[in-house]
Every structure is written in C-alpha cells, then in structure tokens.
C-alpha cells in the first residue's frame, strides 16, 4: 500500500463519515459542520490529484464563504433540532439493504467501465498559469456570463432581504 493510496483511503473515509454524519445528526449546525468536513476532505483529494488551484478555491469559496452563509442563516433563524418521527419498519428493514445493493451495483458498473482508464493521481501538478490561459481564451464567454450571474445573485439577495415597505 503506497503512501498515496493510504492518504486517499483516509480522506475518502473521512468524507464518507462526514456525509453519513450529515444525515444522522439532528441539529442543522452539526450537519453544517459535517459538510465542512466533507469539503475539506474533498479539497485534500483535489490536492492529491494535483489540482492545487481548485483545492484552494474550494476551501476559500465553498468552505470559507458558502458554508459561512449557511452557518449564519442557521444561527439567525435559531434552527432547533429536528423532531423524531416514526419511520415505517419496512423502510429500515427492506429499504436500507436495497439502497446499499443499488449503490453497490452502480459502483461495480462504474469500476468495471473505467478499469482501463489511466490513473487519476499522476503525480503532476496542474499549473495555475495553464488553467488561467484556458479560462481566458477558450472559456472567456462562460467566464463573463458567470460574473453576470453573480451580479444577478447579489441583486436578488438584496431584494429578498429588504424590509417590507408598508
């Protein structure tokens, strides 16, 4: 087991643990913390694959801005714990094994079809310079469109957060 494979399994295990914790936690703030853990593990996986700029952007934008927004909203709205309901017994006895079987089937199909693809961790880094050349030459139109999209989102958020004028 090489060091890279070991690090992959640690990060992947932590990510799956975070995702399961998202489902099992009752308070939304704990779910938010688990999601932040998932995002940090994914940033680590991007670094493992050599995509360093994407990893940094993931932490700065997703982990440092989007999730902060979620945490703010949970604190502002004072979201409480979720109520317990009675799940149907059929769901837990037949549903969960069936879902696991479906997931296993999909995983087997994916693994089978991509078996002959080259390895994803090739040990070479994607330079930021190359990424920016692509971004500003081939993808310049989507780039400008996303700036417009952010402007629309800002305007939408301001309109939604206004106090009502009676």
């Amino acid at each position, binding site marked *: 087991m*090489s060091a890279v*494979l070991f690090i*992959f399994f640690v990060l*992947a295990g932590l*990510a*799956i643990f975070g*995702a*399961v914790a*998202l*489902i099992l936690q009752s308070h*939304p703030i704990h*779910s*938010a913390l688990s999601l932040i853990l*998932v*995002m940090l593990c*994914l940033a680590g*996986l*991007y670094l*493992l*694959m050599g*995509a360093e700029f*994407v990893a940094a*952007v993931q932490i700065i*934008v*997703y982990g440092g*801005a*989007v999730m902060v*927004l*979620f945490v703010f*909203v*949970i604190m*502002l*709205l004072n979201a409480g714990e*979720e*109520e317990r*309901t009675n799940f149907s017994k059929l769901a837990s006895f037949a549903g969960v094994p069936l*879902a696991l079987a*479906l*997931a296993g089937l*999909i*995983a087997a199909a*994916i693994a089978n079809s*991509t078996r002959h693809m*080259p*390895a*994803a*961790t*090739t*040990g070479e880094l*994607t330079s930021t310079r190359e*990424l920016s050349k*692509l971004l500003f030459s081939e993808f310049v139109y989507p780039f400008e469109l*996303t700036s417009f*999209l*952010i402007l*629309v*989102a800002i305007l*939408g*958020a301001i309109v939604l*957060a206004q106090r009502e004028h009676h």
Partner: protein
Amino acid sequence: MVPTSYYLVLSAILFGLGVLAFVFKRNIITIFMAIELMLNAVNLAFVAFSQALHKSDGEVFVLFVIVVAAAEAAVGLGIIILTARNRRSLNVERVDLLKL
C-alpha cells in the same frame, strides 16, 4: 497511484448519500446542504476525469460549478429566510399549503 475508478466510486457514494439526505431530512436548510453535497460529488468526478485525461478543461468547469453553487446558495438562503419568517417554521412538511 490511485486508479480513476476509486475516485468515481467515491463520487457516486457521496452523491447517493446526498440524495438520501435530500429525501429523508425535514429541515429545509439541511436539504439545501444535501444539494451542496451532491454538487461537490460531481466536482470530484470532474476533477478525476480531468486529471486522468490530462486536460485541464474539467478543472475550469469545476470553477464554474463552484461559482454557480455560491450564487445559488446566496439566493436560496434569502428565500429560505423569507419563507421561515412568514411560516414561522423550518419544517418542509408544514409548507404544504399555499395559504399561510
């Protein structure tokens, strides 16, 4: 060296867990977080393919997905705040009538 299929299986598992959270949770904010989890799983698949095929197009696309997710989170959370103020509850099962 980690084969590409490992990353894709991880991406599929995370996506499936996101779908599970989306279906089973009742708090609207948690459901929104499940959407973000699904987007992250897709990002992982994009980057894995981009590295395996030695083209950086996948990573550029990941940047766009992150930006769109951020914009969507901003507007979506604004809507959630308004709805929560009007209905006084964050439980999606209570928001099943058009009448307040």
